[in-house]
């Protein structure tokens, strides 16, 4: 809590990151934006024992326990962008609510790729959702985290934690620059159930379309709140059954046989 060294490191990171400022680069017809928050994230990782060894175990642990509280300020700021945008949010609510169904895109794209790479039951844990905390809890409860499904969900969880913010931030910027997607639609898609991923995506978009910044932030925040509310039910009732079903289909296509569940009782009897 009173880890002055940690706060001093963060202050230096903030100053460096803000000093560099947003980096915009013209690639072909579109602009890609890299934001100070991404530099702060990467520089933060570079301070840890694997690299510069400036931050130690205790610093990393303290930082982890602080993130929850620091995020609250951002959430308050999001609230102040939702208020003035309430009229446009109400007008757009059908889109906001229905876009949640887009999360099954995860299953449709993720499961076949996972099976193609030779993953077995790991595919279901890995590709049933974007694997944030509630989904890790769900898979843990249903299959156990030491199961293949558990290994899958934890793998995606960790990759998402380390690279998700960077990946989604750049993805938003690339899609806005090169596809006909409207910034509003991309802002709504940003609410994947992770505040930092949503912020990276909305941040890139508001840097590219400053005149729409308030609406973009409001759409992202509302969509993320919705994901928090209904995301887990989406996973239980729609995404997980769909992942099971698709897994069997793709498995049969690739291996020409039905998947055999390890530890299957019937299998043991043979």
């Amino acid at each position, binding site marked *: *809590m009173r880890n002055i060294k940690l*706060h001093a490191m*963060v*202050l230096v*990171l*903030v*100053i460096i990151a*803000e000093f560099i*400022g947003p980096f915009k680069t013209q690639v072909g017809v579109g602009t890609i934006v890299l934001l100070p928050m991404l530099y702060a*994230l990467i520089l*933060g*990782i570079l*301070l*840890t024992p694997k690299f510069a060894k400036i*931050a130690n175990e205790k*610093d*990393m642990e303290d930082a*982890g326990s*602080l993130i929850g*509280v*620091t995020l609250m*300020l951002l*959430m*308050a*700021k*999001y609230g*102040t962008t*939702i208020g*003035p945008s*309430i*009229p446009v949010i109400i*007008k757009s609510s059908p889109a*906001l609510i*229905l*876009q949640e169904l*887009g999360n099954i*895109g*995860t299953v449709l*794209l993720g499961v076949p790729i996972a099976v193609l790479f030779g993953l077995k039951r790991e595919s279901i844990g890995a590709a049933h*959702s*974007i*694997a944030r905390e509630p989904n890790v809890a769900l898979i843990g409860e249903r299959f156990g985290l030491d199961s293949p499904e558990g*290994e899958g969900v934890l793998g*995606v969880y*960790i*990759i*998402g934690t*380390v690279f998700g913010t960077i*990946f989604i931030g750049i993805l938003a910027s690339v*899609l806005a620059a090169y596809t006909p*997607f*409207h910034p*509003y*639609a*991309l802002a709504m*898609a940003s609410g*994947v159930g992770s505040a930092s991923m949503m912020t990276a995506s909305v*941040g890139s978009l*508001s840097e590219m379309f400053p005149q729409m910044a308030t609406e973009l932030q409001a759409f992202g925040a509302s969509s993320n*709140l919705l994901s928090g509310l209904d995301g887990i039910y989406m996973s239980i009732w729609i995404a997980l059954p769909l992942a099971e079903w698709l897994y069997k289909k793709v498995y049969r296509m690739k291996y020409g046989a039905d998947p055999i569940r390890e530890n299957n009782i019937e299998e043991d009897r043979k």
Partner: protein
Amino acid sequence: MKLKDSLIILLITAFMTLVGNLVGPKISPIEALPGILILVAVSFIGIALAKVVPIKIPSVAYIVTLATIMTIPGFPFSAQISELTGKVDFLALTTPILAYAGIYTGKNLDGLKKTGWKIAIVALFVMLGTYIGSALIAQVILKIIKVI
């Protein structure tokens, strides 16, 4: 975490944000101070409410709801609150948070080795799938209801 500790962390983050605001978007700390204090107050009230109210509602819900209601057009002082909090740059607010997150992420690097490259590639497609799936649906519905 004790309420007092939460308040201290909120104030530290607020200070970092003011510095970031000054270095990056060049907004003077004096100009941004009232806005950031409003955000600190709202956050603190939300954290306190979550502790006091017996029904388990996460503090994030209180904070977002409170901040939203305060800025809905027509609410007393909503225009002033919007104006003041508008001085706090949204991106400058994210920089300190992600700096803490970066340092914390160092802890997860060991886990990466275990998961292997296959899961890493699957993870990228998982994120891609969620994002594009949602964007497609949002785009179509927004077109149908003529918002865009």
